[in-house]
């Protein structure tokens, strides 16, 4: 029964994972087909040259379509909502997103309504992002008021939109669609920040990298914002739900492994129990294949039952997990694949179980008639003698009397488990795997939610971060802002970095020793890195005249710490040594850092500050309050509490990982309980005679039960410890490797663990489950008459 349930759980997770992958992928495909997001986009604020853009488009016949998508951004505090029917109201001030008001695009990058068509708001109407609909419970008919410094525009919510480009959590912006007239009013009002996105659709998406390089080499094109490519947009969209699906499949794989180990234990035990019958059947002339067939039929039924149960349960489970997918993306139609994929996943589980059963049942071939009938052994005579000799040697070595070591009851249990360690090996392995299943998603979750994680993302740890990238006089804003922060007693350790564009020789040239050298843009953050900075994977922070590269850049340029990198600015080329490599998730992961004085005319600036100690201790929300205050004072800067921003921008992913972590915890504990119960049921049946002997010579049932519990503890504890260590070291390696495949800029992941939970809470929870199951299973010890126990063999 327990075996059937473990198979059912494996099948359930495998099928659910398959459905989630298919639904997410299908929904995103459907959304992308309808919304046609751009293949390459460049964000920009400030003046730009339309003729240069037209000229660039004329030179590139691979451009299928292009457009300048105009937007006007408002701070969350400037946008409020009202529900006339109930009198409820609120603002979007909690949101740290950029709220961008736009009109519908004519050809591509369409913003879709819930029916999948491009929304066309009339005057006074607004379509809001799905995320806000969920976060604030906004409904059709609610009012949305956008307050400029001198005007207020009241709009009516006409519905929500699915946004292929900015729906994802990784985007720090979100879009509202309004009519042309309302857009004009918002754009002309004071208080909004005008921005544009230059968007391109290409005839061949495989040309995107080359196209991006080509765009970035043109200095006359808009460029003072982030450039994003189609694969990244797609990745952002699938990451959160995809992560859940991948985790489910991963957990399922571990469960299948547990089920197979368990299967081996059950089948071998069953052959051992029936060895005399098997011997008799062989003596009567039945072929081993026929005998195997009898057993196989039993496990086939068991596996089929488990798989069908798992498949049936996967329907509501997948529905629950994908309930938000259709809302955020598009409703993908049910296809043959939707049905086939989970069915194939379940059939795969069944086939694996049956194949392993067949292999284990081959042991029947080796059963010899005489040995089976005379000695009740499944082993050939020679091996049986070898085992007997080993048993004798062990008996010679054992000493019941041992200096100062516990009671006789516990000493006996210890000797028993030491001698029968091979039979008990299943438990530590299962507990180790259960710890891995439980711990890895939690470690990922605590890592993503840890404030120190920013240093893994390429940003130094700070309480407040200001980005100055949009506007006509960035230098003046930067200088005023830095001065204000320096004088602010609530802030400490203010440091400024300038983002400059250098050029370096591209990857093609690096690999081919200068053949066809091609200069390409390298974004470099220049500032003082001597006072603590990001974590470096290799090497160290850049000193004077040195450069540090993000992992993606180092890989792309084919350089390591100590190598010389040619960099060019204003026509002057320098060979700069690489001091270190760090991980970066910002700006698409392609960044660099140089030690140096701040220079004017930077593309953008980043100002970081820490809270002074009194502010830190007085108010947890101090950073948010200070950030809001600076946002109002310096409208051209975007000031955020760094931790809050990180929490909000990663919330989709962390929510998804949190769901997975809970699921994994439940499944891990359940499986540990099931396997322990099944194992003990079989083990106790086999040890019934031995326990009968103990009771006969004066051990009470309670003492015999305490031996069972002790043995479970002794077997499970090393498994739990090994599992916790493995989850920590290899878990972060595996998850890091998987994340590095996403192309997000993750090349290395160090788990930031919750030590009490991982090294204390989870192991204790698992051991408690094991002990609990042992206590329940061992209750049978006192129930059977001793005479009956002694006759068991």
């Amino acid at each position, binding site marked *: 029964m327990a075996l059937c349930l473990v198979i059912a759980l494996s099948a359930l997770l495998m099928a659910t994972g398959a459905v989630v992958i298919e639904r997410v992928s299908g929904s995103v495909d459907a959304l992308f087909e309808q919304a046609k997001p751009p293949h390459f986009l460049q964000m920009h604020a400030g003046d730009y040259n339309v003729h240069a853009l037209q000229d660039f488009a004329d030179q590139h016949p691979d451009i299928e379509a292009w457009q300048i998508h105009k937007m006007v951004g408002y701070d969350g505090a400037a946008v409020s909502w009202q529900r006339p029917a109930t009198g409820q109201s609120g603002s979007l001030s909690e949101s740290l997103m950029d709220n961008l008001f736009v009109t519908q695009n004519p050809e591509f990058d369409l913003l879709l309504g819930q029916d999948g068509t491009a929304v066309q708001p009339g005057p006074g109407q607004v379509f809001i992002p799905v995320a806000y609909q969920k976060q604030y419970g906004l409904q059709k008919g609610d009012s949305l008021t956008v307050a400029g410094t001198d005007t207020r525009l009241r709009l009516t919510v006409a519905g929500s939109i699915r946004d292929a480009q900015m729906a994802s959590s990784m985007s720090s912006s979100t879009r509202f669609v309004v009519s042309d007239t309302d857009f004009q009013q918002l754009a002309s009002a004071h208080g909004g920040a005008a921005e544009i996105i230059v968007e391109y659709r290409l005839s061949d998406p495989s040309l995107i990298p080359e196209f991006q390089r080509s765009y970035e080499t043109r200095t006359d094109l808009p460029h003072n914002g982030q450039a994003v490519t189609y694969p990244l947009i797609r990745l952002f969209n699938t990451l959160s739900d995809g992560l859940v699906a991948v985790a489910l499949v991963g957990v399922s794989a571990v469960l299948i492994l547990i089920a197979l180990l368990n299967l081996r234990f059950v089948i071998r035990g069953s052959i051992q129990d029936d060895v005399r019958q098997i011997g008799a059947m062989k003596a009567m002339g039945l072929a081993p294949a026929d005998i195997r067939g009898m057993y196989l039929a039993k496990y086939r039924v068991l596996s089929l039952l488990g798989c069908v149960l798992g498949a049936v349960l996967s329907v509501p489970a997948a529905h629950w997990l994908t309930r938000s997918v259709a809302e955020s993306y598009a409703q993908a139609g049910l296809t043959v694949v939707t049905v086939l994929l989970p069915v194939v996943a379940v059939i795969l589980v069944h086939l694996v179980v049956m194949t392993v059963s067949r292999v284990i049942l081959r042991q029947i071939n080796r059963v010899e008639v005489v040995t089976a009938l005379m000695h009740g052994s499944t082993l050939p005579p020679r091996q049986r003698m070898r085992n*007997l000799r080993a*048993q*004798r040697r*062990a*008996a*010679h070595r*054992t*000493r*019941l*009397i041992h200096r100062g070591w516990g*009671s*006789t*009851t516990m000493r*006996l249990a210890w*000797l*028993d488990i*030491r*001698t*029968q360690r091979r039979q008990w090996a299943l438990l530590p392995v299962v507990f180790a795997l259960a710890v891995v299943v439980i711990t890895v998603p939690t470690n990922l979750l605590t890592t993503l939610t840890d404030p120190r994680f920013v240093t893994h993302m390429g940003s130094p740890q700070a309480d407040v971060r200001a980005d100055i990238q949009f506007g006509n006089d960035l230098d003046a804003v930067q200088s005023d802002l830095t001065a204000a922060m320096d004088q602010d007693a609530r802030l400490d350790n203010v440091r400024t970095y300038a983002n400059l564009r250098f050029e370096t020789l591209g990857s093609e040239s690096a690999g081919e020793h200068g053949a066809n050298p091609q200069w390409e843009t390298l974004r470099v953050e220049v500032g003082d890195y001597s006072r603590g900075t990001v974590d470096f994977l290799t090497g160290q922070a850049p000193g004077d005249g040195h450069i540090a590269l993000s992992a993606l850049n180092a890989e792309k340029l084919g350089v390591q710490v100590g190598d010389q990198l040619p960099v060019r600015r204003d026509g002057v080329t320098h060979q700069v040594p690489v001091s270190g490599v760090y991980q970066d998730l910002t700006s698409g992961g392609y960044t660099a850092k140089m030690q140096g004085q701040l220079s004017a005319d930077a593309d953008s600036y980043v100002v970081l500050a820490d809270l002074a100690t009194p502010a830190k201790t007085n108010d947890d929300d101090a950073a948010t309050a200070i950030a809001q205050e600076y946002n109002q004072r310096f409208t051209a800067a975007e000031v955020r509490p760094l931790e809050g921003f990180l929490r909000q921008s990663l919330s989709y992913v962390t929510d998804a990982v949190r769901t997975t972590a809970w699921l994994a915890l439940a499944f891990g504990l359940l499986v540990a309980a099931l396997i322990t119960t099944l194992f003990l049921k079989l083990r106790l049946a086999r040890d019934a*005679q*031995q326990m*009968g*002997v*103990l*009771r*006969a*010579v*004066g*051990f*009470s*049932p*309670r*003492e015999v039960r305490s031996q069972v519990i002790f043995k479970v503890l002794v077997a499970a504890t090393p498994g739990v410890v090994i599992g916790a260590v493995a989850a920590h070291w290899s878990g972060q390696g595996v998850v890091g490797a998987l994340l590095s495949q996403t192309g997000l800029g993750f090349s290395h992941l160090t788990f930031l663990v919750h030590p009490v939970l991982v090294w204390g809470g989870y192991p204790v929870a698992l051991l408690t489950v094991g002990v609990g199951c042992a206590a329940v299973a061992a209750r049978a010890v*006192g129930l059977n*008459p*001793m*005479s009956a126990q*002694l006759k068991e063999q």
Partner: protein
Amino acid sequence: MSSEHATHETQEAVIRVRNVSKNFDSAEPPVTVLNNINMEIGAGEFVAVMGASGSGKSTLLYAISGMDRPTTGTVELLGKDLTELDERSMSAVRLHSVGFVFQQPYFLTHLNLRDNVMLPALKAAESKRFGRRRLPGRTKAEVQGRVQRLMDRLEIGHVAHHGVTEVSGGQLQRAAICRALASEPAVIFADEPTGALNSAMSEEVMDALAQVHATGTTVVMVTHDPACAARADRVVYLSDGEVLDSWVAPGRAASQIDRKHHLAQWLADRGF
């Protein structure tokens, strides 16, 4: 013919069995294995229980030794009513007051012979109390020394460190007797201790039991073998779960051969 009162005349009774019946209701059809048994066994007595297969010999032994509970009736062992005891107290009785020798020598295969023998004695030495009686403390070394002497006496001291699969059936059964004696119980119960042995080994085991009895320990033994039973002071004959009759051995002066003849004649008269 449901009662028997041939208590040992000169010694105080260590076992009193009153109206004991044992039913197996879960069997199909339900069976009554013991039917209203009454008997007493005196201190230092050697009693053999005989009867045809299925007459309830082993069931009686289990019921009066505290290994199992009767369905009705009372069993008094050393003044304690076993039917009133909970599982824990029953375990304590098995540990401190009785030793049991099974037909099959049940041993723990991961321990050597000495540790198997020593197990109950070590366990008993750890106990501080038994009922209201405060137990004299014993050290592990004392237990070890006593067990070694016991094994030497039954001539298995030289195989003490051997595994249980390395010695003969006779040696194993003598080890089982040692184990039963290790915690110095007042009564030894033996369920067909020679049932699985050849005649030479049977002799060895019976000699060992005779030695135990000679030290004053009460012995209650179930057997099929008249030769073994002839070593007893008294033979209780069971038939269909009831005590049919009992044989009392001729005086101590009678030789073993005379006792065997006497018992054989008595059994033949009862159709055995």
